[in-house]
């Protein structure tokens, strides 16, 4: 199983370590030649600054390719900035990046770094999982997407067919269950 991890900026190495712990093979995506002609089983868009990753996707001419993978059904997992990049619209920002997922994201929804927090909350079918929110977004509303987790009345995880997003960072904890959930999404695709 080959997972492409977008390594333009942010906490990508943490995802790679976790996926490799679970036995998946990973490939760093830093420029167009890393994706041309490659058949990925899944993609990960990590946390970082969405403005930076979005800008580099354009500057390195990869926005259409990544969107193409997602539209043809490649499973994708976006955390934090990844959620913002996948969202169809952003409530408090005029930018739209990949825009493949029918959700409205809110950037820096908990405020500045003093608003960052860690908690434990239920996630679809997994029971309680540890969640780390770093200058995190949340989801204002979902269209066709299914809600997977709600913390303090805010939507913090959702899925729409092949797309999985979390506002928090499972890759910063020792708990591998959400990455396993994503690998199961890939496996069940056949």
């Amino acid at each position, binding site marked *: 199983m080959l997972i492409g991890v977008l390594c333009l900026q942010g906490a990508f190495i943490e995802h790679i370590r976790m996926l490799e712990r679970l036995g998946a093979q990973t490939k760093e995506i830093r420029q167009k030649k890393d994706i041309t002609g490659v058949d990925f089983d899944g993609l990960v868009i990590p946390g970082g600054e969405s403005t930076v990753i979005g800008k580099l996707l354009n500057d390195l001419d990869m926005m259409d390719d990544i969107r193409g993978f997602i539209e043809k059904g490649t499973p994708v997992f976006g955390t934090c900035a990844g959620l913002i990049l996948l969202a169809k619209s952003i409530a408090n920002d005029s930018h739209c990046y990949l825009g493949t997922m029918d959700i409205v994201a809110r950037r820096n929804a908990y405020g500045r*770094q*003093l608003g960052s927090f860690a908690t434990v909350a239920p996630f679809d079918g997994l029971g309680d999982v540890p969640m780390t929110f770093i200058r995190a977004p949340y989801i204002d509303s979902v269209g066709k997407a299914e809600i997977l987790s709600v913390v303090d009345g805010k939507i913090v995880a959702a899925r729409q067919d092949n797309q999985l997003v979390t506002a928090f960072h499972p890759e910063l904890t020792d708990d591998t269950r959400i990455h396993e959930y994503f690998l199961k999404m890939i496996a069940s695709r056949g």
Partner: protein
Amino acid sequence: MAVKSQKSESRWELNKNLAQMLKGGVIMDVTTPEQAKIAEEAGACAVMALERIPADIRAAGGVSRMSDPKMIKGIQDAVSIPVMAKCRIGHFAEAQILQAIEIDYIDESEVLSPADDVYHIDKTKFDVPFVCGAKDLSEALRRINEGASMIRTKGEPGTGDVVQAVRHMRKMMSDIRRLTSCAEDELFDEAKKLQVPYDLVKYVHDNGKLPVVNFAAGGVATPADASLMMQLGAEGVFVGSGIFKSGNPAKRARAIVQAVTNYTDAKLIAKLSEDLGEAMVGINEQEIQLLMAERGK
């Protein structure tokens, strides 16, 4: 790590986590909301708000202090990325003010005039994160023990000369490699020599890295400088005077951002380095009157 209470321990984790999100990115010095916007649009992962960039602090001389909170707030309002600001070494009251205006990261910085020539700030007392400069592993671990959740090389700010950032990064990495190869029973004595708790020394020995993110800073002026520092082991880059003291700040900023992401692709960096206009003039090491890196050890 045993030094902190449970509450400050969890805050420290969250603050280390924010630094993890900045990795692979470029943090740019800005002095106005307009510059902050240029930096954000060019792909900065955070900005450092200060009244004067280090090159001008160097030129102006005199005592250099924390910036006007109103100026910092103007920059906070202008951009959506994290905003950092500097306080003087040991000046915990300036740090309290920066925390009160909800800064995302405080740089307890040798660029400003030190306020205390013995003690650094007890950073475990704060909820907001701190980044500190270091010239070697001993300094880095002392700052981490005081509560810093991110480290950067000191380099020599405001010079546009990368030689000292290189020296500090090489020293740090060779210190780490040496510690990794020590026998376990030698670590107690290493802790004594480095003047830091055993736990921190053990962490570096076991993991071959600092327990927090480590950036390069102080003298980075070109995409090639950024690539050099990344290849030497930096996890990201601060660019201070190098951008807004150059001929075409937006273009240079964009080029440095891309060079950090693809730091091993010389062909791409060659292209990025074309037509950037004047780089900052810079000062050579031998011409420097004031060594900021010697402040606060």
